[in-house]
């Protein structure tokens, strides 16, 4: 039944037949209204969002992986923001630098903490990963890892070529006046994003096969929540930084507005995605009594 496609597979496996039978009965009795159809789709989307139908351990794992994807999105936004924020201090009068400097330092500090937490999460899972590899699990995750490595190698080549090109250009040409270079730069960003998400997908495929202990899963859930908190702090700090600069140095912000709006929107989207992951993780790893 088409309506049931709104539900996640795990949920459909458990309740799909029963719900399909109910829908058929409603249809036969003439009670299958548009309201009922919409209700099924709405509930299906809701179950997808809350990873419905998965056992608590799997939900905790999937929630944590959602935070990993959110972090990757955030890293991508961070690179965009880093580029847009170049020379902001020089463009700001000294007597107006206090608050934006504090916001920017908070952003950089939270980025450092978030990165350290992600690395700690990876480090904590290393023994489990090594045990998996020793058991011959490498073959199971060979494909996504090879794909990520291949994209990374191509990215290194593309980066070197772009850097050599940029070296031949004037600063003005590098900053938007050479449309061909700008197009190549946007293509490089997309390539970079593909590389990040190839690694995130490889990590997710591997993590789904690892036999995490309950304690480790809990620990990873806590780290995921902390990473998400660092993303929220960075997003807030960016908003403050941007807001103050927009009011005090509009000449710096206005030409760069799209370069700031896009990364900031991505940061907000990533934070919301991370929050969703943390919600799933917390509900699964720390169920209410």
């Amino acid at each position, binding site marked *: 039944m088409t309506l049931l496609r709104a539900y996640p597979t795990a*949920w459909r496996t*458990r*309740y799909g*037949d*029963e*719900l*399909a*039978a*109910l*829908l058929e*009965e*409603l249809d036969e009795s003439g009670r299958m209204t548009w*309201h*009922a159809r*919409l*209700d*099924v*789709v*709405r*509930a*299906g989307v*809701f*179950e997808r969002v809350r990873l*419905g*139908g998965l056992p608590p351990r799997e939900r905790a794992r999937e929630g944590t992986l959602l935070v990993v994807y959110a972090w990757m999105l955030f890293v991508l936004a961070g690179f965009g923001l880093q580029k847009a924020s170049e020379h902001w201090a020089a463009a700001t009068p000294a007597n107006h630098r206090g608050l934006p400097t504090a916001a920017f330092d908070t952003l950089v500090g939270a980025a450092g903490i978030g990165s350290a937490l992600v690395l700690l999460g990876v480090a904590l899972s290393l023994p489990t990963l090594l045990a998996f590899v020793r058991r011959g699990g490498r073959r199971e995750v060979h494909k996504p890892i090879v794909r990520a490595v291949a994209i990374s190698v191509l990215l290194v080549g593309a980066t070197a070529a772009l850097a050599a090109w940029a070296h031949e250009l004037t600063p003005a040409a590098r900053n938007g006046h050479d449309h061909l270079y700008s197009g190549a730069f946007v293509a490089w960003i997309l390539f970079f994003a593909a590389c990040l998400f190839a690694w995130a997908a490889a990590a997710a495929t591997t993590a789904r096969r690892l036999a995490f202990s309950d304690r480790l899963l809990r620990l990873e859930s806590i780290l995921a929540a902390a990473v998400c908190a660092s993303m929220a702090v960075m997003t807030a700090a960016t908003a403050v930084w941007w807001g103050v600069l927009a009011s005090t140095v509009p000449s710096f912000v206005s030409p760069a507005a799209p370069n700031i709006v896009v990364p900031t929107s991505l940061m907000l989207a990533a934070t919301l995605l991370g929050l969703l992951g943390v919600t799933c993780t917390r509900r699964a790893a720390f169920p209410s009594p």
Partner: protein
Amino acid sequence: MRENDPPVLILTSLASGPKHGYALLLDIEEFAGVRLGPGTLYGAIARLEARGLIEALPASGRTRPYRLTAPGSASLESTLAELRAIVDEGTARLRAWVAA
């Protein structure tokens, strides 16, 4: 919990015996006048089952009846007691207001 929360309605319906999805919908509509959507019904069933408040009986064909568990019965009793306290208080206050 409110009196028209799907979980409360489902637990109340199952208090008179096991029922499958369609029977639950009809029963709830009859005693509460609430027409639950099929997605809402099964969303609530899944969460009640996950919390151990109801349990599935062996399937008959493609339908599967559900029944109240002991924790489900205790949960319903506690919810009804809370609702009863509100009903009693509300009734008393309303009577006093009418008499004044």
